C-alpha cells in the first residue's frame, strides 16, 4: 500500500500545481533559512579536535595586581608570563605541554645558485615547542617537527605552512632550504600539511581570524627567546605595571603573553595536574605573587572555546529566529494543506465507501504530505547551498564555516519531513472525519 499511496502522492503533486508549488516553496524557504544558519552556528561551535578535546587543557591562573580587581570581572588570564611558562615547561607535569607566542617576521628566500632573493613577504606565526605538533595532531606534508636537540641548541629551524611553501618553491619539498627570517637564516625542517581545525583553537590568531586564519611559520620557542624575538603586538594582558622596555622587559614582566597547553593522559589525571598547579601558585605566593588567591582552573578545548566567546550571541539569536521562521512556514503549510485536502472530500467519501478505513485515509494523506515534505526538503537543500554560497562569499571567515556536510543535509530532510508531518496532522485528521454518506449525498 505504501508505494500505491506514494504514487498517488506524486500524482497529486501535479493535480493542483500552484498550491503544490506554494507548499513546497514555503517549506523549502523555511528549511533553507534554518539549515543555513544552523550550519554556520554548528561549524562555529563544533569541537575542532574531538579525539582528545577533553584531554587538552589551558591553565587559567591569576597573577594580577589585587588592587586593580574590579568586582564581577573574570579572574585569571588565559595567558601566562614568561616565568610561569618556563617553570611549567620545565616541571614535566602531565603527558605533554607546550608554550606558544605569536610572532611576525619578514621572510626572504634565496634560491641556491641564484643571488637574487625573492621579494620580502611578511609572515605571521608562532614560537612554540616541538610538542605542539604532536599535541594538536598536526600533519606534515614534508619533513617533520624539529628535534629536542634543536630546541636545546637553540637551533635556527622552522616549519612553514603549505601555502607559504608553495610560494617559495612551488610543489617541491622545501625541506633543507634556508630562508631569511628577520635578520637571521633559518633552515626549513618541515611543512605542515592540510590542517584545518575549525575553529582555530590552539592560540588566539592575529586579525581575529579564529575560523579562517592559519599560522604561516613555526619556530622553536627556546630559539625565539634566545634570539630575543618580540611577541607580536596585541596579545598580552597587563593588569598593573607596564613591562620594562626591551626584550628583557618581556621576560621579567608580570604581564601575560604566552599561551600554554597541557595534554593529560586521561581525564582522571586532571585533578592531579590541578593540585600540582595549586602547589606551584602557593609556593610562588611566598615571593609575593598570586596575591589575588583566585582559584586556578584548567579548561578543556570546549570550555576554552566557550571562554573565548568565539560564537557571537547574534548568531544564536539569528538561528533562533530562523527556526521561528520555519515554524511560521509550517503554520502556513497547514492552511495550504487544508485547502488541498478539503478539495478532495469527495475522493475521501468514495474511498471510504469502497472500503477504506480511517486508518487507510490517514496513511494515504500522510504519505502524500511526506511527498510534499521531501520535495520541500530537496528544494530546501538547494536553497540552503545557494544561501551558504552567497554567505561564504562575504568574508574569508564565512568561507570556512558556511560549509554544509552530509549530516546537515540529512538534518535538512528530517526537518522538512517533520515540518510537513506537523503541518499535515490537523488537515489529515479533518480528512479522516469525513463521513462518506453525507459527502456522497451532496453529489
Amino acid at each position, binding site marked *: 500500500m505504501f508505494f500505491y499511496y506514494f504514487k498517488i502522492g506524486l*500524482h497529486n503533486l501535479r*493535480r493542483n500545481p500552484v498550491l503544490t508549488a506554494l507548499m513546497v516553496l514555503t517549506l523549502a524557504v523555511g528549511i533553507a533559512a534554518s539549515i543555513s544558519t544552523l550550519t554556520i552556528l554548528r561549524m562555529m561551535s563544533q569541537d575542532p579536535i574531538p579525539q582528545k578535546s577533553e584531554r587538552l587543557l589551558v591553565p587559567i591562573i591569576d597573577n594580577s595586581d589585587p588592587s586593580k580587581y574590579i568586582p564581577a570581572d573574570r579572574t585569571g588570564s588565559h595567558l601566562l608570563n614568561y616565568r610561569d611558562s618556563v617553570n611549567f615547561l620545565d616541571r614535566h607535569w602531565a603527558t605533554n605541554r607546550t608554550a606558544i607566542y605569536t610572532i611576525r617576521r619578514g621572510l626572504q628566500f634565496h634560491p641556491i645558485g641564484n643571488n637574487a632573493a625573492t621579494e620580502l613577504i611578511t609572515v605571521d606565526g608562532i614560537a612554540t615547542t616541538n610538542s605542539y605538533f604532536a599535541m594538536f595532531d598536526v600533519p606534515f606534508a614534508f619533513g617533520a617537527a624539529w628535534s629536542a636537540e634543536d630546541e636545546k641548541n637553540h637551533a635556527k629551524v622552522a616549519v612553514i605552512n603549505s601555502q607559504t611553501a608553495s610560494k617559495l618553491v612551488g610543489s617541491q619539498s622545501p625541506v633543507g632550504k634556508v630562508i631569511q627570517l628577520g635578520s637571521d637564516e633559518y633552515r626549513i625542517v618541515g611543512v605542515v600539511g592540510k590542517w584545518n581545525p575549525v575553529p582555530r583553537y590552539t592560540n588566539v590568531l592575529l586579525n581575529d581570524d579564529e575560523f579562517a586564519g592559519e599560522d604561516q611559520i613555526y619556530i622553536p620557542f627556546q630559539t625565539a627567546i634566545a634570539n630575543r624575538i618580540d611577541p607580536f603586538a596585541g596579545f598580552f594582558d597587563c593588569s598593573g605595571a607596564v613591562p620594562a622596555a626591551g626584550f628583557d622587559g618581556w621576560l621579567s614582566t608580570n604581564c601575560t603573553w604566552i599561551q600554554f597547553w597541557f595534554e593529560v593522559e586521561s581525564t582522571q589525571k586532571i585533578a592531579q595536574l590541578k593540585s600540582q598547579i595549586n602547589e606551584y601558585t602557593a609556593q610562588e605566593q611566598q615571593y609575593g605573587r598570586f596575591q589575588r588567591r583566585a582559584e586556578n582552573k584548567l579548561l578543556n578545548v570546549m570550555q576554552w572555546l566557550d571562554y573565548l566567546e568565539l560564537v557571537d550571541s547574534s548568531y544564536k539569536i539569528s538561528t533562533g529566529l530562523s527556526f521561528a521562521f520555519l515554524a511560521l512556514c509550517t503554520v502556513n503549510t497547514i492552511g495550504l494543506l487544508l485547502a488541498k485536502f478539503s478539495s478532495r472530500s469527495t475522493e475521501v467519501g*468514495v474511498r471510504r*465507501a*469502497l472500503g477504506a478505513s480511517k486508518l*487507510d485515509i490517514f496513511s494515504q494523506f500522510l504519505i502524500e504530505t511526506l511527498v510534499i515534505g521531501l520535495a520541500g526538503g530537496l528544494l530546501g537543500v538547494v536553497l540552503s547551498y545557494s544561501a551558504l554560497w552567497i554567505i561564504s562569499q562575504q568574508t574569508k571567515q564565512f568561507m570556512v564555516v558556511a560549509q554544509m556536510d552530509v549530516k546537515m543535509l540529512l538534518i535538512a530532510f528530517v526537518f522538512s519531513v517533520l515540518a510537513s508531518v506537523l503541518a499535515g496532522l490537523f488537515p489529515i485528521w479533518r480528512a479522516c472525519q469525513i*463521513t462518506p454518506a453525507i459527502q*456522497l449525498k451532496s453529489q
Partner: protein
Amino acid sequence: MVRMKNISKVYRAHMIETHALRDFAIHVKEGEFVTVTGPSGSGKTSFLSIAGLLEESSSGEYLLDGVNVGQLSDKERSHLRNEKLGFIFQGFNLIPDLTVFENVDVPLRYRGFSRAERKERIDHVLAQVGLTARKAHFPSELSGGQQQRVAIARALAGSPRLLLADEPTGNLDTQMARTVMELLEKINQAGTTILMVTHDPELALRSQRNVHIVDGQVSDLVRRHSSLVAG
C-alpha cells in the same frame, strides 16, 4: 441478506432533530432485486446509507449477511463494506485523477489482492460493462453512461454479495438508463442481491419487489406490480 429491526436515524443540527427513519424494519433475501421508492425526504437515502454501512443508525438492530454490524469498529465496518458491498451513485463518483483502470482498482487495493488478481478482475468487469477499450481513459473523457458503467464495474470488481444503487440512472438519458438497467438485471440474475433507490416508477416496476418509504417508515411491502399495471 439485509435484516433491519426497529432502526431509527436522527440527525441533529442546530438544536433541531430530524427523524429520517423511525422504527424501520425490512428483510431483503439473498438474490432479490428490491427497488426503494418514496417522496423526497422520506428517508430512502438514509436507509441505503445505513444498509451500506456508510452511516450508523441511532438505534435498532441491523444484521448484514448474518453479521450484527452494531458493535463493529470503523476498521471492521470498512472491511465488511469492501468485501460484501458494492456502491453505485447517482453522481458516479469516479476519482477524476485516476484512469478507468485505476478507478476500478481502488476497492481491490483495499482488499489486498495480488497484482495479478487485481488485473484479472479489472479486465473481467470492464469486459462485462463493455469498456475494455477505455481502460486508459480518464473519467472526464467519457460520457455519463460510460462513467456509470465504470462505476458499476468498480462496484462489481470485488464480487460483492449486495449491490447498493442510489438513483443510478438519475443523471442519464433514457437510452443510457435502459442500458444501465439491463446491466443491473444481468448482475442480479448472476446472483447478486440489489437494493436500488429510484424515482422512476418504470424502473420500480421492473424489479421483483418494491419498497415504498414514507416519513421514515416502510409503508407498503407488497408487490405493486399488478396494481401499478392496472393503474
